[in-house]
């Protein structure tokens, strides 16, 4: 066994332990930290397997940004997981079948690390041999990413942009007012407002000469508007009863 193989096996075992610990723990804070460790160990494994760019990104994103976002969420939703009420037989069967099919599928694959693996035969040698002549970029991953497959990378940029559009649509400016239909009209209300409160508000609005619905300023980036932090949400949970 070469040292590289040894490291490979140790890291894989570490990953398995971390993964199982994630399943077992009921403390979400611990689970988030373990997920971060999982990413970091995978990043190490990527380095062992020569994927330095992937390792870099995984360490920055999986262990960094993802963990920060998860922690930010835990701060908002709490970190206790309840005990599951039913024994998860069906998921277990699904997982076993899926895993079995995957193992069946890999059983005739070229062995790990084989240079004559068809994956390494067709398109890849072209990149390794000709990309320097064509782009003068020594890092083949960069030249493939930004030139040969730049359309994919365009999609990737669009995906992160889509994510921020989605998150701002969902999270910008505190608990969002909502549009609901009341008494034949569409109006904007704070979340958690009950129908009775609504009726009163609606009455006041019509009497007050139709003061328009409070749509709020146009500021999609205002998720952290300091002024916004002052006003508390009116009666959260009014709808929950």
């Amino acid at each position: 066994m070469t040292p590289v193989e040894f490291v490979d096996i140790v890291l894989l075992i570490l990953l398995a332990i971390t993964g199982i610990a994630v399943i077992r723990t009921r403390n979400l804070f611990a689970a988030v930290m373990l997920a971060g460790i999982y990413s970091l160990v995978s990043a190490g494994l990527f380095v062992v397997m020569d994927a330095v760019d992937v390792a870099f990104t995984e360490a920055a994103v999986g262990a960094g940004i993802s963990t920060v976002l998860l922690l930010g969420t835990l701060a908002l939703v709490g970190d206790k997981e309840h005990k599951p009420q039913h024994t998860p037989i069906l998921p277990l069967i699904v997982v076993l079948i899926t895993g079995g099919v995957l193992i069946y599928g890999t059983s005739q694959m070229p062995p790990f690390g084989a240079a004559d693996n068809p994956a390494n035969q067709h398109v890849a040698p072209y990149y390794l041999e000709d990309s320097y002549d064509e782009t003068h970029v020594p890092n083949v991953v960069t030249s493939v990413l930004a030139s040969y497959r730049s359309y994919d990378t365009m999609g990737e940029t669009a995906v992160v942009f889509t994510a921020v559009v989605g998150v701002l649509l969902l999270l910008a400016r505190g608990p969002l007012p909502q549009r609901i239909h009341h008494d034949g009209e569409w109006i904007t209300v704070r979340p958690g407002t009950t129908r009775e409160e609504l009726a009163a508000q609606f009455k006041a609005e019509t009497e007050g000469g139709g003061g328009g619905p409070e749509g709020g300023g146009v500021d999609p980036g205002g998720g952290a508007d300091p002024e916004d932090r002052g006003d508390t949400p009116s009666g959260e949970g009014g709808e929950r009863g």
Partner: protein
Amino acid sequence: MSEHLPALLVVVPLILAPVAALSNRPRAAFAAAFAGCWWALYASLALLTRVRSEGVISYALGGWAPPYGIELRLDLVNAFVAVTVATIGAVVIPYAWTSVKKEITEDRIPLFYTAFLLMLSGLLGITVTGDVFNVFVFLEISSLSAYSMIALGQDRRALTATFQYLIMGSVGATFIVIGIGFMYVMTGTLNMADLAERLPAVMDNRTIPVAFTFLTVGITLKLALFPLHLWLPNAYTYAPSAVTAFMASTATKVSVYLLLRFFFTIFGFAFAFGQMRLNMVLMPLSLVAILAMSLVAIYEINVKRLLAFSSVAQIGYMVLGISFGSVLGVTAGLLHIFNHALMKGALFMAMGCVMYRVGSVQLSKMAGLGKKMPWTMAAFVGGGLSLIGVPLTVGFISKWYLVQAALEQGNWLVAGLVMIGSLMALVYIWKVVEVAYFQEADSDVEIREAPLSLLIPTWVLVIASFWFGIDASTTAQVATDAAELLLRGGS
């Protein structure tokens, strides 16, 4: 300029998305979305015309020859699907302006149109690309934007519906990635045409059937074939009206297209239907989808939910057509992609009109609407007739081809079950019609007809569903040619 249309079809809406976001004003964002949708309609129609006269169009992005670079590849099949998507986009967007103003707070409207444009370009990107990994990238653009738009629904259950969709959609996408990886390991390429060439040599390896299985399951999750449809009814029910109308007529259709592309072009008919016995799996599943989901729809009391279950049943018809593995069957499937987009678009838009005035689409709230909103309910009846498959509507054309395909194989049972499905559609459409036309309104709340800005787009789709039902020669011709192309195994 016209030679760049395959790329421009996707990237013009895509660049308009950040422009809409930066403009930060509802009107400007809407203008960008409007321009993007109509540009897509123009470009896709021009491309379909060109494909019909000149054959396959290949566009090498960045000037890199495939399979080293990414290729956009248009044949009759995906040009047809692109036209379907773009048509619905172009009709829904003017509708969205009025509808969205009611259902979404003003400060979120610019971002809403941004998400709309992203979803449109994502769907078009999936349709025109000739690279399997690129499919995944654009699939994620369209899915993520779809999630964020569904979550904007006014009912808080929109959030849980979206979360469920996000989980199931991500599992589907990850399965697709696994399938792509397995294919890549055995062939060393990601280009679809190249894969089709290189796959037959390694078909005997166990990896390829597993890749096929994972791709099929992943795509089936995305297209909501029974029993993987669980995300769809809630997502369609709680999304804002314009989003439901757009998604119901496009997102699942693009997934059906992907299924066709993988089955026929990449793996080939012989592998998919010979070795993998696909028809043995897909046919029972689609029949169960048609019958069970129609049955559930009959007992639904929320009309949007009713239509959503009906959508799952209709997806069953499309997959049933594919599962015959014959030219007639695939023609029926392709035709139903287009036809169902027209009629379901019309039906959901009619429900959007009801939502606009009544604020709810519960059946009980719709009593007497036939008199109060005559045009809206007439549009609903028009779309409903099509859903049932009455002659002179597009629904009839699809069913006609489907029954023919069944009879061609001597499968009387399937033909009979398709008829029963139609009868069940009659029952659930009638249920709505009965309440709207034959029950008296119980409250005295004044309800007016929906504004013209909603009615006109709705009626455009209703009229189109009759137009292409009366004169189906063009669509049927294109679909037949496309089906023949697919069964020949690509270009």
